[in-house]
């Protein structure tokens, strides 16, 4: 079975989600040839498809990669880009790098957090937004930077952020 067939199946929910997820693990691990340096990429590829990393998926990865479960668990909980909990439909990331900080990024993120009623790392109750903070995206000249669903927005202000989020919701 090819990876894109699995992708389509997950979308259409043709089979039981859990079974599909474990198939995804096998295919992704195979594509990366079980190489240890690819572990983070493997987990991210799986996460991109499944949405997050549930425990049975991680256990399967441990088996396929021939690594102990505590090792996989320590890697999955060590790196901020890996989520063991389901994420919101939209991800709002604020860069808190120095250049952005000096231009007020922290205050903007706090305002947005207050608006959504969540702290960085959390997801809104309605499952719409996950708020994240990142320590420098490397786009310092256009700071403060906000990334909404993978798209970069420069020279942010609290007002603009609120507008963009409202547009996103609708």
């Amino acid at each position, binding site marked *: 079975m090819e990876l894109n067939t699995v992708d389509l199946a997950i979308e259409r929910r043709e089979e039981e989600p859990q079974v599909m997820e474990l198939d995804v693990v096998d295919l992704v691990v195979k594509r990366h040839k079980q190489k240890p340096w690819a572990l983070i990429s493997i987990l991210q590829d799986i996460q991109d498809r499944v949405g997050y990393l549930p425990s049975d998926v991680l256990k399967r990865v441990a088996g396929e990669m021939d690594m102990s479960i*505590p090792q996989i*668990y320590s890697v999955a909980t060590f790196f901020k880009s890996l989520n063991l909990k389901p994420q919101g439909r939209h991800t709002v990331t604020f860069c808190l790098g120095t250049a952005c900080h000096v231009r007020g990024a922290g205050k903007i993120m706090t305002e947005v957090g207050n608006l959504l009623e969540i702290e960085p790392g959390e997801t809104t109750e309605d499952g719409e937004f996950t708020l994240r903070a990142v320590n420098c995206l490397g786009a310092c000249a256009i700071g403060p930077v906000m990334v909404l669903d993978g798209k970069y927005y420069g020279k942010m202000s609290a007002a603009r952020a609120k507008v963009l989020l409202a547009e996103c919701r609708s």
Partner: protein
Amino acid sequence: MSVVVAQASLPVTIDGAQVSVDKGTTIMEAAKLCGINIPGVCYLEGLSPYGACRICSVEVSTDGGETFRVVASCTYEIHRESVIVRTDTPRIRRIRKMLAELLVASAPNVKIAQDIAARMGVNRVRFEMEDNRCILCGLCVRICEEQMGGKALGFAGRGTDRVVSPPFATKSETCLACGGCDSVCPGKIIPCQGIKVPGELCGKCLRPEDMPFCCPMGTLGCFCERNPL
């Protein structure tokens, strides 16, 4: 592990005393041969050294005494001649005292933290006290991984969120219930304090909210239950 044998090759000087050791001997082991016991919290003979608490820090010179830098004696191995070590200078005492203060501020109810603090002369704590029951020494993780092969414990999280945990924070399927973790824990965080009144258990194992999350008893089931009186 090293043993001093007739053909021991490398001379090392520790606090003025000279001793000859095999290549690869750690400073901590070499010091023991001179009768010097360097304090530490995360070291246990028989398990691989970890270098996490840094309380075993010593000064080392590899240029004949011109310059000294600070290293952890449990992990620093002797691989050359003429290494000079100083284990008890004002610089080292200053380091150990602050580390002890940090440790006891984090885990005041853990016995070894109190012991180290007392030994280092800490009589006031200038930080807001927390009440962690685990000092993250990693001995339980290492005994499980290296000696027992249980693969039931590991570190999770990062930084101030770092914890010792069975995978997915639930009871591990591969735990062998060997009790190794319990036996090496320097904090003796096991809440079971045995029998308080004849015929009565302390009862803590029956109150999960009193058990710190990483308590190995959480993974094994309280011995009280398994070994009723």
